[in-house]
């Protein structure tokens, strides 16, 4: 069957990793925030911001890596705003997060338009090029599928390991997890849960912005305002799918990317027999199904979305 033959093409698997990269960054970012007990719905806006800032830096003559760095810094800045509103002030995390998304997206577009007032087609930059890993990339099929990616993709995979190690094996990771479970317990042991939460949100938001930056610096080569297209929301769902665990977050991102890459190719195989919009729905529908199956026994951080106030219980 032609529809199944798609799975045997190396280009599918290569696309999976590429599509998954922004999701991996975004999901890890959201996961770190939530592990510390704060939902960050600013993700969609922060990813848009990261996409534009990285692109703009490179467009103005900066190095690609400097672009990513600037994106991470700007993301961290918006994370700080979210953190200040939700942690010391204890505002509603939903409302604040949505506000951040609207603010960041609008500001992004505003700055973009201000810098490039009239352009009919969006200008492009020279993006990250695939980096063949010596030796491994020579393996037939697997080499092309998995070991000729752009550098940020490898960075994303490394970040998964780093985050998993941080959370599971370091004192800081324990402090973050404990803050998400019971900030009073953290305070009673002499640590400051407010600082831990702020730090986690800033770091998480920086990762989200990197996810957005990948779109302009490695995938599309140009910026347009609607390019994030709900990827942020997908990341929020993936965190639940992953039961707040980095390893499973990677799995979730890959699975979603597989659905997406597959439906793109399936469209060409089946041609016009079925409207293509139905195919576009596939990853989302399958995500919902996976979410239902996977997250029923998830261990939700107990203090997620509960503001912490010293001296109150």
């Amino acid at each position, binding site marked *: 069957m032609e529809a199944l033959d798609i799975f045997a093409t190396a280009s599918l698997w290569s696309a999976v990793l590429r599509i998954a990269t922004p999701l991996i960054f975004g999901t890890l970012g959201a996961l770190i925030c939530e592990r510390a007990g704060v939902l960050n719905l600013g993700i969609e806006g922060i990813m848009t911001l990261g996409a534009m800032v990285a692109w703009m830096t490179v467009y103005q003559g900066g190095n690609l890596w400097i672009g990513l760095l600037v994106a991470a810094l700007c993301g961290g800045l918006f994370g700080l705003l979210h953190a200040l509103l939700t942690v010391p002030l204890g505002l509603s995390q939903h409302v604040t997060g949505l506000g951040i998304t609207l603010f960041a997206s609008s500001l992004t577009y505003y700055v973009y338009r201000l810098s490039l007032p009239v352009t009919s087609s969006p200008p492009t930059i020279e993006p990250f090029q695939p980096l063949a890993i010596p030796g491994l990339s020579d393996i037939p099929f697997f080499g092309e599928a998995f070991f000729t990616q752009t550098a940020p993709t490898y960075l994303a995979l490394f970040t998964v390991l780093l985050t998993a190690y941080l959370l599971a094996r370091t004192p800081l990771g324990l402090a973050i997890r404990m803050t998400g479970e019971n900030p009073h317990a953290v305070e009673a*042991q002499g640590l400051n849960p407010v600082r831990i939460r702020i730090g986690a949100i800033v770091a998480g938001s920086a990762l989200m912005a990197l996810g957005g930056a990948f779109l302009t610096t490695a995938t599309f080569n140009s910026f347009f305002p609607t390019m994030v297209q709900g990827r942020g929301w997908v990341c929020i769902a993936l965190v639940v799918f992953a039961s707040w665990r980095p390893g499973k977050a990677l799995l979730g991102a890959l699975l979603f990317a597989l659905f997406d890459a597959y439906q793109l190719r399936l469209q060409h195989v089946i041609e016009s027999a079925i409207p293509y919009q139905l195919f576009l729905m596939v990853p989302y529908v399958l995500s919902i199904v996976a979410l239902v199956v996977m997250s029923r026994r998830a261990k939700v951080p107990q203090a997620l979305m509960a503001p912490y106030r010293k001296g109150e219980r």
Partner: protein
Amino acid sequence: MNRETVLELAHISKHFGKLIANDDISLTLGKGELLALLGENGAGKTTLMNVLFGHYTADGGQVSAFGEILPPGKPRAAIEAGIGMVHQHFTLAGNLTVLDNVMIGTERLGLLRSGRKQAAAKLRGLSERFGLQVEPDAFVADLSVGEKQRVEILKALYRDARILILDEPTAVLTQIEAEQLFQTLRGMTDTGLSVIFISHKLAEVMAASDRVVILRGGRTVAEKRTSDTNRAELAELMVGRRVVRPVRTDQAPGRNILSASKVDIVEDGRKLLDGIDFTVRAGEILGIIGVSGNGQAALGQLTCGLRGADTGALVYDGNQANGFSPRMLVTSGTGRIPEDRNTEGAIAEMAIWENAVLERIHEKRFSAYGFVNRARCRDYATELIDRFDIRGAAPDTRTGLLSGGNMQKMILGRNLAASPKLIIANQPTRGLDEGAIAAVHAELLAARKDGAAILLISEDLDEVLALSDTIQAIFKGRLSAPLSAEDADSRTVGLMMAGIWEASHAA
């Protein structure tokens, strides 16, 4: 015996708005001493300990440990000075392991790898040395309340605490667990640790402490060596007046009001209630005694109309069914005092008048044509407040602001005002102080005198012995045969609570 002083609180004052929680309190703790801090709810015990540990900053006064003055408002400084605190509401994370909960805050945050192996070894060593059995890799959510408390104590010991403070440590424990706890604490003081425990229970203060400091209204009213005092004196010092628990007088019971025959309640294949039989008659109190977790929750739900019997039947005033709806119970005159007043008894966010009419809002006097008659509701609430002596309350006060005892009086009042023919009282005095307990007992006995049938579910032996005409023990979902009050003494009933009721009949 003169002990070396390890901890000194000097002239501590702390107020919250207009409320003066601590007024110039001073106390000292000696090495190896087991000191009880006794006082009613709201006497300022917890505030004082929170000042000591640095959760609160005092308005005046200072704390010194081992001769060093502690900086105010810094838990970290208290921990480093060797003070450990076990809060009444545990500060644990259920989704994390015992080891995680113990290790938090013990390592520098910058470390690249935490030393979990060494930590687990140290924890095992401590738990063996002090007889506090826990499994380091178990998840805290899977532990019993007693085990969680052990984790809290181990947390303090792990950080080399030399002074341990426990806030109402037995509030959540069964009698047996409480006895074990005090044994453990005694073992600790024998090795040179010093312990302060907060309590309002006279029995445990008399049984366990070396010395007792009594607080009332934010002031120290007395300090006694435990061996030089007695229960009655402590009770009087604590409450500030003589508290006499009311005494039951004999009266002949009337007709059967509520009975159960061979009732089973099954959940996930486990029998929560196993073939229970009981009968409560008018003007009679039936006391169901048992260590909590033996089926009381299911019995409470069954009799309050929250779930039906899977087999067997209930007969309520001549009507037979396998369960009754809450609405039917209310309209036929049943007063229900639920086990947990905060989650089932009252809605903390709502005003007192709203809670007062909650069960009877459908009555004509409170609402008509879909509109609530607020004036009448408020009048009714005022009536309850006056009649049942609910302190610190006006009809529009938020219910959550009431103390536990006054909230319980509100719930009692709401149920008793309508002269019910049946009252289900599930742990009616749990967590209340001596004064409030006496008030609740008096109200229940008054209702009995008026002919109400009362089903009293309690784990407090003194309470059941004092109030009940008939006693049945509950153990693993089964009920013992009824024992009349004349034949009951604390030893017999104690055995029954352990499930040994055949033997207790012979004795």
